[in-house]
């Protein structure tokens, strides 16, 4: 009887809610993850060619300007403007979220590609690399840390923005939040909100792990860069600080990511 009470009393924290509505919560979380993953994946696929286009001087202004304009449009308006094209559907939410992710992704990929040292490109050309092989085997790997930093920022903001999809009933956990407002169901609102933040943190940590695994060289060079300038000199034991290097990487990635995403002056 006392277990039922927190539902009746409309408490913020309610174990009985978690138990009795676990299916609702699971469904909403799965939908949330699906929409986020689809949006970021499509976002990367669209952003990459756009970043390559923006490398040419003539296209840099229009591409960056367009993505900035898209980012300025408030989320609710973005979804609403897509309504005549998609109707009340998950594709509407995914399309809107892709448009948002483009700003961050294009800027980060572009910054990553532009930061590839000219010497590395010259050396690859000297070895007979064509443009495609140069991009795929030299520039892309060197731009990977910046790209992944962008993917992390885009993913975290997409997880949060997915909730707005509740306006067309495809908002994952956001639908539970909005439904909880209509019924003033406090436990549902709080639980869905907390799950949403946890989802963003989990996605961020997951991508941090991916970044760590995919770019082992960033960990190796950090120690040498700290000790001496361009000369390659490895101190014995410098590579031992795995967790330390990782923590440092986190700070650098988030600080760098933030400034790449926000600092670039929109047109």
């Amino acid at each position, binding site marked *: 009887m006392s277990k039922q009470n927190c539902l009746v009393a409309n408490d913020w924290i309610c174990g009985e809610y978690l138990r009795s509505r676990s299916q609702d919560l699971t469904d909403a979380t799965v939908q949330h993850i699906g929409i986020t993953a689809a949006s970021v994946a499509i976002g990367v696929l669209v952003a990459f060619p756009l970043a390559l286009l923006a490398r040419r001087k003539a296209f840099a202004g229009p591409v960056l300007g367009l993505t900035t304009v898209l980012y300025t449009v408030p989320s609710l*308006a973005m979804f609403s403007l897509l309504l005549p094209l998609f109707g009340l559907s998950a594709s509407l939410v995914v399309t809107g979220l892709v448009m948002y992710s483009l700003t961050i992704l294009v800027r980060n990929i572009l910054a990553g590609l532009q930061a590839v040292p000219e010497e590395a490109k010259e050396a690859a050309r000297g070895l007979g690399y064509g443009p495609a092989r140069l991009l795929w085997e030299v520039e892309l790997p060197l731009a990977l840390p910046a790209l992944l930093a962008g993917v992390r920022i885009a993913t975290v903001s997409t997880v949060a923005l997915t*909730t*707005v999809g509740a306006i067309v009933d495809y908002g994952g956990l956001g639908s539970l*939040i909005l439904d909880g407002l209509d019924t003033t169901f406090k436990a549902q*609102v709080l639980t869905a909100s907390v799950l949403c*933040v946890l989802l963003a943190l989990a996605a961020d940590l997951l991508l941090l792990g991916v970044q760590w695994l995919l770019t082992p060289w960033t960990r190796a060079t950090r120690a040498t860069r700290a000790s001496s300038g361009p000369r390659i000199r490895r101190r014995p034991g410098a590579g031992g600080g795995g967790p330390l290097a990782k923590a440092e990487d986190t700070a650098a990635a988030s600080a760098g990511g*933030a400034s790449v995403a926000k*600092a670039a002056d*929109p047109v």
Partner: protein
Amino acid sequence: MNAISGAWDWLTTGANWQGEKGVWHRLTEHLYFSGVCLAVACLIALPLALWLGHLGKGGALAVNISNIGRAVPTLAVLVLLTLTPLGEHGDLPTLIALVLFAVPPMLTNAYLGMREVDRSVVEAARGMGMSGGQVFRRVELPLAYGLVMTGIRSAAVQVVATATLAAMAGEGGLGRIITAGFNLQNTPQVVAGAFLVALLALLVEAALVLAGKAFDPMRGRSGTAR
């Protein structure tokens, strides 16, 4: 195409602009919420960020606060605040949420702007005998100006967007035209409202870009790498 001509008809119908639920009233509400909250957020975030940046302390806080701000859904905060006892005080939940989401971009950008000022320039200014306050006013602040303004612009865009979402939590503002359109299954109204909101956001951004250029302390000086 139907929706676009429908939205145009909606926008050109005078009755939709008048009265309690009309565009003018909703626009006034929107601008009032956004303006007040942006001003309050500036008063909170900028002095703190500039002070921390001048001292060179609190970098982890300044960077992480914007990461946290990005991870927390605006809608969740609006709805949570509306359901608390604060929800009985009319607009208060919306105003609080707007300030909460405007602070992080300003704090982070202003802080990074201060920290990215070339240390050798600051050293040179100190070597010339400038005091801490003089270094701040005459060297660091002008050089950090670009990023400070970027932060204010990001915050303004965020505030306009959040004020739109407030409609989903039952508040006023232009977003109300959109949510009412959804409730009435009136697609032209939804599109017309969305168009107005998007236009407002772009105008606010453009106005701040122009204001930023007009007040740039480095304006008209040659030899700056801007």
